[in-house]
């Protein structure tokens, strides 16, 4: 945890953000902000709106026909709604979904896809980039001899790490992780956590997790969302040791969830 994270300027900000799926409200006037180069942990019971929150950042929520949003999401002070080229926005934000998805192309191409789109075609440069991303996601040693294997043929945990490697290949300024460790064994998870703590120097990390201890280990600040509402948010240790609301303390201590 970097002690100076509070000194950093705001990188990501939610202002009165609400989301409806048809008639049901998935997020209810969420407001909080994330400083640059910090890790924000977003915790809360299942179905409380955590994943929806991530999808508002890179506007993949627009893919769901019945979703409507109110309020604003600001990346670097810029309202994402006002960004004309939504694809350029998505390339700035790495996203790791909870379901592991190897795209139907080779492991190498999975990782090289986004860099190629951004105009990198030099073989040596791509090789290096792919290797770095796969090393950062602790997958390199398992796939280095079979980079031409179809991404869909990897095991669940491997595909999960491939998804992470793919997200890193964008060199994103914000990295969103949605339950990245559910398909991964504890030892590998710890390795990835170490890498993520190093990556913090290069990017801001939004960590959605069901594992409150993971949030405690990694996050500088934690936001607790329950039943579509932001119950409270603040520095990690403060929330764990001295929560402002009773509900927060009970959840973080594993009394419900």
């Amino acid at each position, binding site marked *: 945890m970097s002690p100076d994270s509070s000194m950093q300027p705001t990188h990501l900000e939610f202002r009165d953000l609400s989301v409806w799926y048809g008639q049901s409200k998935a997020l209810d006037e969420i407001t909080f902000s994330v400083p640059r180069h910090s890790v924000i942990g977003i915790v809360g019971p299942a179905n409380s709106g955590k994943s929806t929150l991530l999808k508002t950042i890179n506007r993949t929520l627009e893919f769901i026909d019945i979703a409507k949003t109110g309020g604003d999401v600001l990346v670097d002070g810029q309202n994402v709604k006002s960004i004309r080229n939504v694809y350029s926005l998505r390339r700035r*934000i790495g996203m790791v979904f909870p379901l592991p998805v190897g795209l*139907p*192309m080779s492991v190498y191409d999975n990782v090289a896809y986004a860099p190629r789109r951004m105009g990198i075609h030099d073989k040596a440069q791509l090789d290096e980039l792919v290797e770095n991303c796969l090393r950062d996601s602790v997958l390199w040693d398992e796939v280095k001899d079979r980079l031409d294997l179809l991404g869909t043929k990897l095991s669940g945990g491997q595909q999960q790490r491939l998804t992470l490697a793919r997200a890193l290949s964008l060199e994103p300024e914000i990295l969103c992780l949605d339950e990245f460790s559910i398909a991964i064994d504890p030892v590998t998870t710890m390795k990835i956590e170490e890498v993520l703590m190093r990556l913090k120097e290069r990017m801001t990390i939004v960590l959605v997790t069901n594992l409150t201890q993971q949030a405690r280990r990694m996050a500088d600040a934690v936001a607790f969302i329950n039943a579509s509402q932001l119950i409270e948010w603040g520095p990690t240790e403060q929330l764990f040791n001295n929560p402002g609301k009773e509900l927060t303390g009970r959840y973080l201590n594993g009394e419900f969830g």
Partner: protein
Amino acid sequence: MSQTPSRSWRAILSTATDKIEKPIELLIKACGLSSIVLVAAIFFFVFWYAAPLLPKIDWFGHDGFFTSTNWHAKEREGATYGVLAMIVGNFAVAAVAMIIAIPLGLAAAVYISEFAGPRAKEWFKVSIEILAAIPSIVWGFIAITMIGPLLIKYAGATMGANLLNGGIVLGLMSVPLIVSLAEDSLRAVPDSFREAAMALGANRWEIVYRVLFPAARSGLMAACMLGVGRAIGETMAVLLATGNKNQIPTSFTDPITTLTATIASEMGDAEAGSPHSQSLFTIGLLLLVITCAINLTANLFIRGNKRKSAA
């Protein structure tokens, strides 16, 4: 209330199903085998009716089956059985049909599955089902009364019924088949694939081209192969639309004939058991072999693609 009776009933029921498991397995196996048996039986049947003529046919000679266009099967004396023009006609008309139907069908499937709104999607699906249900004889009428005159007027054809006309009609007939199968296989690709590609900044066209097509490849291949199968095997519309003239076409506006059309137009005149009838069954045998070969190639292709990693 005691639960004992119901439990014992369940126990009896489960021992009973344990006992009939084996016979049921055998029954299901028999049903599966029946399809293989049926294929073998059809081959045998067609072969049986063609057999007496087979030793007498000149296959690759001057008036050979595969090497000449001289089809004089009705003659009592000096009959010749050259089907080269029909084979060429069959493949030419199917090729024209696929050039039209595959791009049109795949594009329509992509539109319906990826771009159309929910209401539009319903309308499209209903109209495609109706299109698929139009009888082939009606397509034949459309070919003669509408497409034919247009080809004479705008494509410089001397006769309305020709290769291009047959190709267009067969193409249009294959489109609904290709659309509905291709749309099914595109829809079967999980949304998580689209989301993942989208999160990488891929636009909709790239999602279709780089992610959906490879993921749905075997289904799309199957859709196209079934389209080809329909185009090769279709008879009624082709008979009306192609002009039924036994010649190798030199231009798109030449009238042609096909293997299927020849069988359909001559079977009524052929005396049962006569060499003429046997020659038509020989054509039928050839058609069977061609369709089997197409299916097997498609299977090998699909399997090969699955094993090999995508580049």
